[in-house]
């Protein structure tokens, strides 16, 4: 299997994260690894640094990881999770400034074609400008 950029979806809602991941898989096929998480450590609405870190670890590969987030806390907690990972991974993980559902589908679709991390991120971010 050819390596592809992987996608991580981080929402405040576990339902939104699960649904967005399903939509990415529908477009991007099996070669693009997708992980998702939503909810605070107690399962309520919010985000969870440990869960985000686990998601990145699940899908991390040499082509890197594009993270899609919904609201502020999801971004701040994702930044924190990235900083807790090995230094050599950190430059290979990006947070896309794009709506979480549409951005994830765009990023996943771009990744499925074999594009690099910068191109995947740009596609997610530029489509909505």
């Amino acid at each position, binding site marked *: 299997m050819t390596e592809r950029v992987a996608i991580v979806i981080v929402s405040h809602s576990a339902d939104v994260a699960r649904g967005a991941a399903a939509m990415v898989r529908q477009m991007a096929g099996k070669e693009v690894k997708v992980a998702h998480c939503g909810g*605070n*450590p107690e399962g309520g*609405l919010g985000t969870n640094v440990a869960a985000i870190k686990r998601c990145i670890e699940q899908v991390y590969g040499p082509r890197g990881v594009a993270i899609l987030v919904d*609201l502020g806390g999801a971004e701040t*907690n994702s930044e*924190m999770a990235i900083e807790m990972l090995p230094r050599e991974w950190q430059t290979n993980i990006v947070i896309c400034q794009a709506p979480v559902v549409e951005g994830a589908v765009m990023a996943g679709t771009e990744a499925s074609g074999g594009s690099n991390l910068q191109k995947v991120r740009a596609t997610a971010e530029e489509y909505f400008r």
Partner: protein
Amino acid sequence: MNATQEAPVLQTPDPLLARLLDAAIEAIGTNAERLGDLDRAIGDGDHGLNMLRGFAAIAAQRDALLALPLASALESMGTLLVMTVGGASGPLYGSLLIAMGKAAARDDASVLAMLDEGVAAVKRRGKSDRGEKTMLDVLVPVQLAWAQSCREGLAARAALERLRSAAKEGLEATRPLVATKGRASFLGERSIGHLDPGACSSFLLVDAACTAFLEDAP
């Protein structure tokens, strides 16, 4: 002791660290409802419960934390908040305490350096500064008040009272501000007239720390 001779503060005999910890845990515990109310007015309403979850995790580790030197205790508390809070305040308060802990671990450590580095870490993490209706509207005045007390060589009691006043004034100053960070920014001008919940939790923690220090300050 005066503010320019800070070393005694940093030796943190266990009773002081215990008082600091217990005061912070109690401040969040008794005010969680108030923080939730403030956050319901201009945000998603979870700040009280999030802080409560974080400080409950700290309370659960109380004995282990008290066995550590101050620097390590602060870093461990920061990591606990990062991992348990579940909102942006986790990484924000976590970064504050972790940076303060790292500053405390250095040979030339001082409270001033701890505040400087802690507040700088919050600014970086939040991509924010004073004036945006956030916890920095309390933390920056606190940092400036301590720096001024150090320059003036103020006695500890007076310096701590000044710190507490700066925190209180910083909190009140968020009321007329328009929020430009976080969920509250979605409300735009409707955020005017409300205290910022993050600034309120920062005030509560600073106030609690001052009370803990004042108990045996000259």
